[in-house]
């Protein structure tokens, strides 16, 4: 099945239709954008800790610059890091390999989706340099900050922001159709839907949720462009419009979007925890059903973002209830993961450390999420740093911790070598410690009433106390540590890519089909057509002399 024809550099590495090359393109673009997003955070955290001093000696930061940086940090981390790395990157790499296909269902569409995404990245980066600077209305772009030029003082920055986000949505719509069709329709013979590895289930459901939630926001984004450039009044109360309309359109997509990036992360977790515990995934069917339930519930929780923005108070209770209810499927995940690890023969390699770290961190994020989702508590802590700390305790584990677990685990399938374990463990320790140092103090700052969108906390007496300033500095020092802790990773990534220990086909003795390819898999992936003989997680089977039975291994005596 492998193609032996010589390919030019351009068709092999640039305009490639090979799902593995496209996966790397998505991942590397996403990780480069993560550096931009991380440095932005470093800059505005410096401003928050020492607001009256020049930031890195460059000058005092004006409030509108601060707003633009926070806005772009959020936008980049969600749309240009989490989405391309987790959904498109890992999805492209793993879904075809795990179902035993030689490529995605629509390879040319796949290439198109990456290049549309690339274009959106360029547009977003250009928006930093246009007159007036980048968008500064928050990553949520609520009107009136977004629909009138006067409100945020940014003209072209917002237009380009909307254009970039729209292009990005097109890219992931195309990519999503591809992932869904590949995951459902390209399974090898013998692999029923109930034999799919957890990652495929999670990514397919995530893509479906994205596909079915993003539509209204596309309409909403067009309305923003019409409002600000042509003077229509969709969000303007004077003309009969309603600014709340955008909040509904945004969060109808925006909240499911949280699950769109969470689900692939949980899929990665399932694979890594299971392979390194040498035990069958606990409650596979229960987890899959909980993913499906979470996917459905994710469409009816959005208004919990709007408890204080003037929704009908009668709506607050059902949305609180649904929000608390949606924590159940994710509690099922965490319990199942803990039960999987429980009494296993655990290998604490770097991927496993990150996976275990995820469970601990996400627990804090999840529990504080229930607090935020309860209208009575939310009204007090809304828009404070408590909320900021909450969503960083969910999104940082999703976007980075799970991604790192996945990269350390599947590096052989990306670049054919293993990553350095010592550097990996330093990376884990630094990331884990400094992540907590960054975000734990923010819970307290939030409880003190620190609003999330103020550039200079010392302008307020209650935030100028020595306690508050100390927490502020602690969080900023944590941010520096978190950024510096990524240096071993970057070094490890490139040195392992070029000089790393060569990996065999199945270095972790895992059971899913991608481990039946060469490391890295050639064009066309498998040496011969595959067949699945059993479910995805047969570890320590009874009656058989081997430790694990991959899906691709024919039936054994005594099985």
């Amino acid at each position: 099945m492998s193609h032996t024809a010589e390919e030019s550099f351009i068709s092999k590495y640039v305009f490639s239709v090979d799902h593995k090359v496209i996966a790397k393109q998505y991942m590397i673009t996403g990780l480069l954008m993560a550096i931009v997003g991380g440095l932005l955070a470093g800059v505005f955290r410096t401003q928050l800790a020492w607001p009256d001093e020049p930031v890195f000696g460059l000058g005092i930061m004006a409030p509108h610059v601060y707003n633009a940086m926070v806005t772009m940090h959020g936008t980049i981390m969600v749309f240009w890091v989490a989405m391309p790395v987790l959904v498109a990157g890992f999805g492209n790499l793993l879904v075809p390999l795990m179902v035993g296909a030689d490529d995605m269902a629509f390879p040319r569409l796949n290439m198109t989706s990456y290049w549309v995404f690339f274009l959106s990245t360029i547009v977003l980066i250009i928006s930093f340099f246009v007159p007036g600077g980048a968008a500064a209305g928050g990553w949520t772009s609520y009107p009136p900050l977004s629909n009138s030029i006067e409100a945020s003082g940014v003209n072209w920055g917002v237009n380009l922001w909307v254009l970039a986000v729209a292009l990005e949505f097109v890219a992931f719509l195309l990519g999503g159709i591809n992932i869904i069709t590949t995951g459902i329709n390209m399974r090898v013979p013998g692999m029923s839907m109930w034999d799919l590895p957890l990652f495929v289930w999670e990514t397919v459901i995530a893509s479906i949720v994205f596909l079915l939630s993003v539509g209204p926001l596309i309409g909403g984004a067009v309305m923003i462009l019409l409002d600000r450039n042509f003077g229509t009044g969709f969000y303007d109360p004077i003309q009969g419009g309603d600014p709340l309309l955008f909040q509904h359109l945004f969060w109808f997509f925006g909240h499911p979007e949280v699950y769109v990036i969470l689900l692939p992360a949980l899929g990665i977790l399932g694979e890594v925890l299971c392979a390194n515990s040498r035990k069958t995934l606990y409650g596979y069917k229960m987890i899959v059903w909980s993913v499906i339930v979470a996917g459905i519930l994710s469409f009816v929780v959005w208004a919990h973002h709007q408890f204080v923005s003037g929704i009908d108070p009668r709506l607050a209770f059902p949305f609180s209830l649904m929000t608390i209810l949606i924590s159940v499927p994710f509690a099922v995940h965490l319990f199942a993961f803990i039960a999987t690890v429980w009494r296993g023969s655990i290998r604490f390699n770097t991927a496993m450390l990150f996976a275990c770290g995820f469970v601990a961190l996400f627990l804090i994020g999840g529990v504080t999420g229930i607090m935020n989702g309860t209208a009575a508590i939310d009204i007090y802590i809304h828009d404070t740093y408590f909320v900021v700390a909450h969503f960083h305790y969910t999104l940082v584990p999703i976007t980075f911790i799970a991604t790192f677990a996945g990269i350390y685990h599947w590096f052989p399938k990306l670049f054919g070598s293993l990553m350095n374990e010592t550097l990996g463990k330093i990376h884990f320790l630094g990331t884990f410690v400094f992540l907590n140092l960054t975000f734990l103090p923010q819970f307290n700052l939030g409880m003190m009433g620190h609003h999330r969108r103020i550039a200079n906390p010392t302008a307020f007496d209650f935030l100028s106390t020595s306690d508050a300033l100390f927490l502020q500095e602690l969080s900023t020092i944590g941010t520096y540590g978190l950024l510096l802790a990524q240096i071993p990773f970057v070094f490890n990534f490139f040195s392992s890519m070029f000089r790393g220990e060569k990996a065999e086909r199945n270095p972790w003795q895992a059971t899913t089909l991608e481990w039946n390819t060469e490391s890295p898999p050639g064009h066309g992936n498998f040496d011969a057509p595959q067949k699945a003989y059993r479910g995805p997680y047969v570890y320590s089977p009874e009656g058989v002399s081997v430790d694990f039975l991959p899906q691709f291994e024919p039936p054994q005596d005594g099985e």
Partner: protein
Amino acid sequence: MSNAISNEHELPSAMHATELPHGRMGMWWFLSSEVIIFGGLVVTYILCRMHHSEWALEAANTINMAGALNTMVLLTSSFVVVKAHEAAHKGDNAKAARLLFVTVGFGLIFLCVKAYEYHHEIVQGFVPTANLFWGFYYLMTGLHGLHVVGGMVAMVIVALGVQRGNDPVGVEYVGMYWHIVDIVWIFLFPLLYLAS
């Protein structure tokens, strides 16, 4: 090693695990996202309309006859595209391509009628910024119009391909897309024209 693989189940790479070919399944998912895009707009419009009973007077200024004519045009074109699919299914590619061009022709009539309406409304002062009703009117019919244009372009590409001897499977897919364009219009017509 790969010794585990038996050759008895060798299948072409275009194999599909369900009854559906990849293209049709992908198309259904694509169309579902289109339904959500227009569904979101329609629901938004209906909710706003409930707060603005005065929009009934604005809607009276649309040309019902032109809208009705366009509904007929799109419904007929949907029938033609079904006949094109039928011809392709029977292997008569030349006829399939011809019928696709007929469908494109109906699309062109639709756009001409719509252009006449826009002209008529704009000269009377009913521009997109006149008030929110006209904002929604131009947004929804405009987005729909773009889909009409997109469908026409896709049909021309498929028809030319079929004439050159390409696999006529695309006839079915552009047909599916064209039905969605038609169905969306069936929602827009009563909501924007008749509800006056």
